[in-house]
């Protein structure tokens, strides 16, 4: 399972690592994690989304997990479940599943190379979220190595289970700050036979209105993303075959499904392609979504992706055409509604290195921060794992 070395210039927040670790077994990983050498460890799966969050709070070392986690993919076809080491690539998981006519509906940016554990830890999601929910909703059970090197388990591998605390939800999206995910059991789905196509729309607002109409009329699209970029504004849809026929005739759509896959990938990967340097995801109520879109338009994003069913608007900027920092910050703050229950949130998924410290990638947790700190204290009191990188400086 040896993996190509990370690029030599691996830096976070402008600082280079003090060391680099590549344990070759679970036992070695455990010893390494439990050791206290003054460094904070940055767990690395595929290394695709390492820039998520604040820079490490102190001297750090990347901890490459490939090669440390045992076990292969275990697919229980009849049960529609799969157990995989956290370092399993989504691409390999989909390969195994598709040969059995099944699929795992998790498609974060750059999905193929991403690792299952990395996706869950970072909390990223993709277009399929409109139909299947967040990646964390598909998790049935998990094993996690705590900062003391001990592996603990929660959940199981059945699709319905309330036995014990739902630690999986605490671990998902926690950026590895409470432990390193080592193994995951997920629910998979029969691969629906679907049709994808795009239709040109006048504006993002028109796209939102169409999606709303389809949603209310029970079309149940797997993907319903509006894309606005240099190629214009269009609505990309993926629906079960029969529903797709009905949707096409309802929309009077011509058969321009040739762009299907291109648009899907454009919508999925927006913000994480090499030429892009800044990526923001805003989640808002439907009522507020048009206003969010307007604000993002005014910041001249290179690509805007709107996923109305789940209230998501994603914007990406190229490195050479960044918005004014002050304007960007003001917009982000306007999306971060202070009083709970929040009706919109904003997360900066990527930003230029020299912006570190000037923006907060997460925003302050509006409530419950004291409990979050106590959880960190309970599971990683020394800040061995991703110290300072999470929301609220955890």
């Amino acid at each position, binding site marked *: 399972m040896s993996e190509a070395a990370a690029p030599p210039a691996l830096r976070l927040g402008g600082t280079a690592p003090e060391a680099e670790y590549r344990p070759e077994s679970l036992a070695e990983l455990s010893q390494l994690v439990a050791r206290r050498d003054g460094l904070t460890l940055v767990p690395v799966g595929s290394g695709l989304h390492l820039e998520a969050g604040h820079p490490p709070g102190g001297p750090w070392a990347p901890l490459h997990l490939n090669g440390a986690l045992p076990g292969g993919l275990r697919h*229980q076809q*009849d*049960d529609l*479940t799969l157990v995989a080491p956290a370092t399993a690539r989504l691409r390999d998981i989909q390969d195994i599943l598709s040969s059995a*006519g099944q699929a795992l509906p998790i498609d974060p940016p750059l999905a193929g190379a991403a690792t299952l554990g990395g996706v869950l830890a970072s909390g990223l999601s993709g277009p399929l979220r409109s139909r299947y*929910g967040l990646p964390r*909703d598909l998790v049935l059970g998990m094993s996690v190595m705590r900062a003391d090197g001990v592996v*603990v*388990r929660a959940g199981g*591998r*059945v*699709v*319905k*289970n*309330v*036995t*014990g*605390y*739902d*630690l999986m*939800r*605490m671990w998902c*999206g926690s950026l590895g700050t409470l432990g390193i995910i080592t193994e995951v059991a997920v629910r998979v789905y029969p691969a*629906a*036979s679907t049709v994808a196509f795009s239709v040109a729309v006048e504006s993002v607002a028109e796209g939102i209105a169409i999606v709303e109409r389809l*949603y*209310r*009329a*029970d079309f*149940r699209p797997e993907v319903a993303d509006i894309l606005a970029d240099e190629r214009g504004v269009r609505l990309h849809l993926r629906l*079960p075959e*029969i*529903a797709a026929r009905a949707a096409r005739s309802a929309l009077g759509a011509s058969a321009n499904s040739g762009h299907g896959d291109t648009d899907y990938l454009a919508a999925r990967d927006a913000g994480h392609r090499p030429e892009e340097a800044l990526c923001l995801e805003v*989640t808002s*109520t*439907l*009522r507020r979504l048009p206003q969010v879109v307007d604000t993002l338009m005014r910041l001249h994003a290179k690509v805007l992706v709107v996923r109305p069913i789940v*209230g998501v608007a994603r914007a990406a900027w190229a490195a050479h055409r960044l918005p004014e920092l002050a304007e960007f910050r003001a917009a982000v703050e306007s999306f971060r*509604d202070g009083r*709970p*229950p*929040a*009706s919109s*949130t904003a*997360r900066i998924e990527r930003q230029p290195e020299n912006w570190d410290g000037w923006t907060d990638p*997460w925003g*302050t*947790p*509006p*409530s*419950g921060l*004291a*409990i*979050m700190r*106590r*959880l960190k204290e*309970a599971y990683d009191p020394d800040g061995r794992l991703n110290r300072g990188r999470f*929301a*609220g400086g*955890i």
Partner: protein
Amino acid sequence: LTTRRQLVSRLAAICGERNVLFRREDLLAYEFDGTIEKRLPHAVAFPATAEEVAAVVKLCRELGLPITPRGAGTGLSGGAVAMKRGVVIATSRMRRIIEIDPIDRVAIVEPGLPNIQLSEAAAQHGLFYAPDPSSQRACTIGGNVAENAGGPHCLALGVTTNHVLGIEVVTAEGEIEWFGGRVPGVPGYDLRGLFIGSEGTLGIVTKAVVRLLPLPSQIVTMVAVFETIDQASAAVSAVIASGIVPAALEMMDALTIQAVEASIKPGFPADAGAVLLIELDGLAEVVESQAASARAAALECGAREVRAARDTAERTLLWRARKDAIGALGHIAPNYYIVDGVVPRSKLVDVMQTVGAVSRSSGFQIANVFHAGDGNLHPLILFDEREPYATERVLDAAGHVMRACVDAGGSLTGEHGVGFEKQRYMPWLYSEVDLENMARVRAAFGNTGLFNPCKVLPEGTGCGEAGNQAAAIRNAGPEAYV
């Protein structure tokens, strides 16, 4: 030390005199839930606001008294039974729908609101709230959040945690906090997800923001009749393997069929070995094609008859047969005990055979009515508690069924919760290290051991010996120490 009189007067100062119960005859209604555990609390408080809940929690902490949250008391794991006595905090005065927003498709409700009332109110906007436990006419949203409740329609739509966006809670420490919001993605750890299903051991929900879904445009409900459970189980797998995720896929065995035919009369053949309720919903064209595939799959597996409900009235009757089946079975024996194990779907046939074996060896009749699509079994052990040692023998039989579920790679509970009654079995699934790891969550929320004690995680003393009711009643006088 505090006397009951002092406790009651301080609770009354918070909630108002009329909103505190302390007389034995009043407390008796609060000593049990839907299971067989009983324990008399010292007092029941009915706060009306999050602030009052917080004040009661802080008072109990000050006095060192156990707290047990309670919704409608329909729970099926002893979660609302005050195992160490103390104060029960009931949410029945907090039952408002604060807001329904048909554009955002969100509702904000108080915890004591009965589940069905939310869907009824949402229906005016063409919306509904998805989780639909069989007890939905009585059970509350707060209780649903605590238990992460499911229901027949969770196969396609997910359980409570998939439909609750945010919660306002009073933590075990007595602090008012919001977890989540009107949208997902609120920064920080997902305390919302951690809290949902924590069975009232981390705090009490005081408001919930829930997601509402558009009512399906078309619904087809079919009944497939089989000679045996094995055939019906095979049909469950065949339907799902055909690429359909039905809205619901529910099974009833021969004993259940007879019981519901005797009272509800949904028109099941009296000699059937099993019936499957298959519900499909969505776009008319899609539902039509799925119904044809599901029918073919059922016939292929040996169904002797597959018919679809002709109209809403018949559909309602079929669902009443399913949701009231447990009540109908209550006519067969004076008491029942319901198991909630989950098995991987491929093990359904094996484990059902074990359930049959347990019935024969224990001498108890066991009826089965369950969520076949998710492998969530509900063997219902019928008994008469007046027979000597019946309760002990029933619990023993239930233990054997749960063991079989765990051995098949499944779990102890799919939707009813661990509560008091299953905590002793937790070591079957989790190591001591795993359990201690879970216990840290409780501490982080400020639970020092007195907030809904004896639930979820195995605990030592003071929990197991609930039988001494006589002593409890003797000690219930106004001057007794609490």
